[in-house]
């Protein structure tokens, strides 16, 4: 009976979608030649696909609800894999060892291409972790994060072009400039909340890109800057393959460093202040937290990571132009943070790998690549709205353990 109704509903859905996609999927006109092409086959395709997908969607949503209900009824939460991973040393350590081993041998067993896209994914992991400070921890919706990424990339490109400065010399400069721009954006938007903040940050991102596009004397405009040096290893320039591997390990290092810093920050006095700010701005201030400083801290620190990654990005592609720093880029980084589960380090890492590697592996579907990508974003949000891994708050040991506090277990240390 239930099956029948869900069949019926899916049938109606498929009728609806056939209607909905009719003009765009079925008719194709060539106004210049005045030819109309009727592609009825597409209509059948849409009908069939939407029927099957609707059935599947119904089944999974039902299952999801059932699961939630069962958990609520029993009151007992089964030990999930995730929980074990985070809470049981004996379980987490071997997995960590496997992952690090895999990370080390990766570039030696896979092709340069694989290493190269993995490096890109790692860049986005770090960007995601950086934005996570601003959005995930401090709760400030930033849609212009890519601006700081651009600042970093251009500082390396320009310093390299004009003064021949090397990667390692510019890295701290890029980070510093990122932080400065973070503060620059931070000051005017201190009073703004929620979505007003979002649009101003979006505008800021666009302003930076437009300046890079228009100010030819400074940035060489839309034709960009070419022949940026790749990073050197103790003063020697490596070949392309070796350099790809080298960059990969630089990024692995960066990722570990970032995880270390972000993890420590989020469980510190500053990190708690960020989270409190996110949870309730008024109460946060009433508890003696300086809102202005806390917000600026978050903006500046978030931007620092973007600045550094910008330098790495410029070194990796060896060519940059303003087209790489569009709003879509910010949106992707934001998606990484939200999809990962706001504030969760492991979540951000997983989401970055999915969102960045997915379009690469979807190349097999050629034309349908971005269509599937958009589709997957929607589906993931519908099925896991709280993100892949929801953040677990750290628990502390307290009471009689005189001495140090370092004994406590850190959830989420990777």
């Amino acid at each position, binding site marked *: 009976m239930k099956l029948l109704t869900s069949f019926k509903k899916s049938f109606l859905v498929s009728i609806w979608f056939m209607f909905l996609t009719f003009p765009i999927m079925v008719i*194709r006109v*060539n*106004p*210049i*030649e005045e*030819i109309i*092409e009727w592609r009825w086959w597409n209509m059948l395709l849409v009908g069939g696909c939407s029927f099957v997908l609707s059935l599947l969607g119904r089944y999974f949503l039902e299952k999801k609800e059932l699961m939630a209900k069962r958990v609520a009824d029993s009151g007992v939460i089964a030990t*999930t*894999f*995730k929980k074990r991973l985070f809470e049981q040393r004996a379980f987490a350590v071997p997995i960590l060892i496997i992952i690090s081993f895999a990370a080390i041998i990766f570039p030696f067993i*896979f*092709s*340069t*291409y*694989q290493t*190269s*896209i993995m490096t*890109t994914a790692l860049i986005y992991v770090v960007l995601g972790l950086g934005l996570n400070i601003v959005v995930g921890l401090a709760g400030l919706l930033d849609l212009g994060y890519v601006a700081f990424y651009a600042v970093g990339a251009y500082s390396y490109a320009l310093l390299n072009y004009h003064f021949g400065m090397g990667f390692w010399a510019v890295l701290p400069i890029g980070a510093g400039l990122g932080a400065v721009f973070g503060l620059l954006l931070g000051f005017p938007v201190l009073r703004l909340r929620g979505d007003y903040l979002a649009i101003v940050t979006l505008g800021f991102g666009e302003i930076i890109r437009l300046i890079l*596009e*228009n100010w*030819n004397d400074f940035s060489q*405009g*839309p*034709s*960009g800057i*070419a*022949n940026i040096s790749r990073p050197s290893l103790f003063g020697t320039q490596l*070949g*392309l393959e070796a350099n*790809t591997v080298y960059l990969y390990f630089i990024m692995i290092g960066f990722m570990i460093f970032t995880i270390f810093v972000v993890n420590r920050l989020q469980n510190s006095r500053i990190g708690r202040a960020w989270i409190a700010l996110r949870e309730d701005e008024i109460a946060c201030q009433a508890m003696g937290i300086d809102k202005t400083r806390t917000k600026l801290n978050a903006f500046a620190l978030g931007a620092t990571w973007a600045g550094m990654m910008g330098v790495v*990005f410029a070194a*990796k*592609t*060896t*060519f*940059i*132009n303003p*087209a*790489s720093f569009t709003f879509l880029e910010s949106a992707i980084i934001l998606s990484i943070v939200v999809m990962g589960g706001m504030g969760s380090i492991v979540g951000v890492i997983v989401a970055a790998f999915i969102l960045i*590697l997915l379009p*690469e*592996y979807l*190349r*097999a579907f*050629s*034309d349908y*690549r*971005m269509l599937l990508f958009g589709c997957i974003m929607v589906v993931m949000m519908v099925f896991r709205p709280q993100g892949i891994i929801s953040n677990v708050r750290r628990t502390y040991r307290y009471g009689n353990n005189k001495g140090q506090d370092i004994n406590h277990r850190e959830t989420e240390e990777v």
Partner: protein
Amino acid sequence: MKSFVKLIVILSIMVIGVFSSRLGSASDTTIKLGVAGAHSGDLASYGIPTVRAAKFVVKDINEKGGILGKKVELLIEDDVCKPEMATNTATKLISEGVHLVVGHICSGATKAAMGIYNNSNIIAMSPSATNPDLTHSGDYPNFYRTIASDDAQARLEVDFALDILKLKKIAVIHDKQDYGKGLAEFAKNFLEKSGRAEVVLYEGITAGAVDYSAIVQKIKRSKADGIIYGGYHPEASKIVMQMRKKRMKTIFISDDGVKDDTFLKVAGKYAEGVYATGPKDVSTNTIAVAATEAHRKEYGKEPGAFYLNAYAATQALLNAIQKSGSINYADLSKALKTEYVETPLGSISFDDKGDAIGVGFSMYQVQNGVYVEVK
């Protein structure tokens, strides 16, 4: 435990994906021709015709038994015209054992990718990357193109405006993008150097905006007697239409991006009298006619931008293999520079810098709804 199983499944799918793409590169019994460019995103319309052109050429050749006894295989990769994607695309093509590349489409993406091809001694030939640096700077020895560079086009536009139209006050407008702004920059410099006309306005417009009346008013106020526009047809048609509707008779000179049938269709009667540079007339070239016809038959419409250039590029590359009998970098370079090949663009070869000899621009004017070459 269930989510653990899920994780394992996901991981194994990824691993399989990784390995299978590696396995694909094992055989070497075919000639692998990469086609890279924007096949999705906002610039897809400039990349997709190239893929189609390459497909037609390769189909023809394979039907005739291939080259040197080998079939030609196409490896088509999208770079969305973004430099960072282009590096990944290039690396991927090389990992798959590509021998030659048609692409990339945008100059920026091309520059980013060229270093990677150069490192593996692979030749790339772009049908559309017009940035002069690509051939003039000497940084990209493995780069060739079947389209003239921006400065050549700008030169033609400026000479035409000064010598033939005898304009005195010129407004130079561009779309702030790679191609348009690069061209406009050259045009402005040539005009200023000549000293024979004044550049009364030099400005960029935002591509894709809903209305251009403000810039049109500004042109009107500048009292320019002619406009040189660098950019593509969507914006050009909007500007021309708004100008003509406002009863402005200012002469409009533009580039290859505007010499497009969509422009004629969109601007309609307002397009009358517009000048645009474009590749030399190919309406009598039998290869061009056949190539266009093939496209029309297969896709039911006129081919898009850079279709013939891509057709020519694919032919030129395959011809070089045929003539040199090798897929070796040095042999191919030599063949490209010495051998002429019949293409839709005429009989072409390449100079030392990589620019095509025999590919040039002519000036066209819209007369009675069609582009007519101005002799």
